[in-house]
């Protein structure tokens, strides 16, 4: 899949979820695997930075996480 699911971690960072080819849709995976109550957004993989030197400093505006909430 060329999409990723992002949500905000408890520490304020960004979690990036890579879906596996498991027979579920990315929406189903997001609803199942995103922690309960956490809003998420499904983005293209091209939108994820590849330079991970400052990975711990990544942030996301929770207002942009509008695709759903972890079940």
């Amino acid at each position, binding site marked *: 899949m060329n999409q*990723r*699911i992002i949500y905000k*971690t408890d520490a304020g*960072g960004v*979690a*990036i*979820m*890579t*879906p*596996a*080819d*498991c*027979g*579920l849709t990315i929406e189903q*995976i997001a609803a*199942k*695997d995103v922690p309960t109550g956490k809003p998420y957004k499904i983005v293209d*993989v091209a939108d*994820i*930075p*590849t330079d*991970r030197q400052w*990975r*711990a400093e990544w942030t996301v505006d929770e207002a942009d996480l509008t695709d759903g909430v972890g079940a």
Partner: protein
Amino acid sequence: MAQHDYNIGDQNGFDFLVDLNNALSAIATNNAGSSEPNTTFAHMLWFDTNNDLMKMRNQANSAWVVVAKKDGSGWTPYRQGTALGTASVQPDTRYAHRSNNLSDLGSATTARANLGAAEDSSDPNFTNDPNAAARRGLVQQKLINLILDTIPGLVEAELNASGTAPMYACRAWVNFNGEDTASIRASGNVSSITDNGTGDYTVNFTTGMEDANYAMSGSGEDTDGAGDVTIGRPNGGTKTTTACRIKTVTSGANVDDYPSVEVMFFR
């Protein structure tokens, strides 16, 4: 036709002769007459000329039982008051005698149908066989037993397992690239991996484990010279029936991303 009370009374010679001849005539004609004899005996025969029926008195001498009917020049036998040859004997659906008329057995197809025979190419699913379900169950059970007896050996042979030690299965596994945007190369019973940060991942299972007491093993490869790869679970990290958090660290105990991370879970 004659009937007689079979009682020869005290009389003169001529009357005696007539009375005796009448009695013999009644015997010779089976007491034939349009009405029943005035005097009856157990097992007595009476040919009812009004209905052409041969009747026999029952053992209690209380009723007549029809034993045959005169049809033109022949006779139709009776059984328990019903003419044979057209009798509906038993309401049993399994056998030919369920038929109302034995002539129904005139063709092989009809006979097979009446007998519920299974060996009919037109009935491959045994739908006409009243015992089909039991037969199928028996065959299925024999096949199951055969499979159960055979499978362990086949599995051991397929896995090149020698000895008698039991085998336990890997319940989930994943091989992924932990660098860049992270990508999964291959997996089994894994729905996703979560990149929590540098060298920090959560493996999410498609189907959950029976409990969280599973064992995890991991390995990986470092290609940028940072050192040997160690994969383990962080202190207090998530380990539930649905997910397990892992970290990849260097030999210097620093978290790092690796191009190849391989983990597997056993239970």
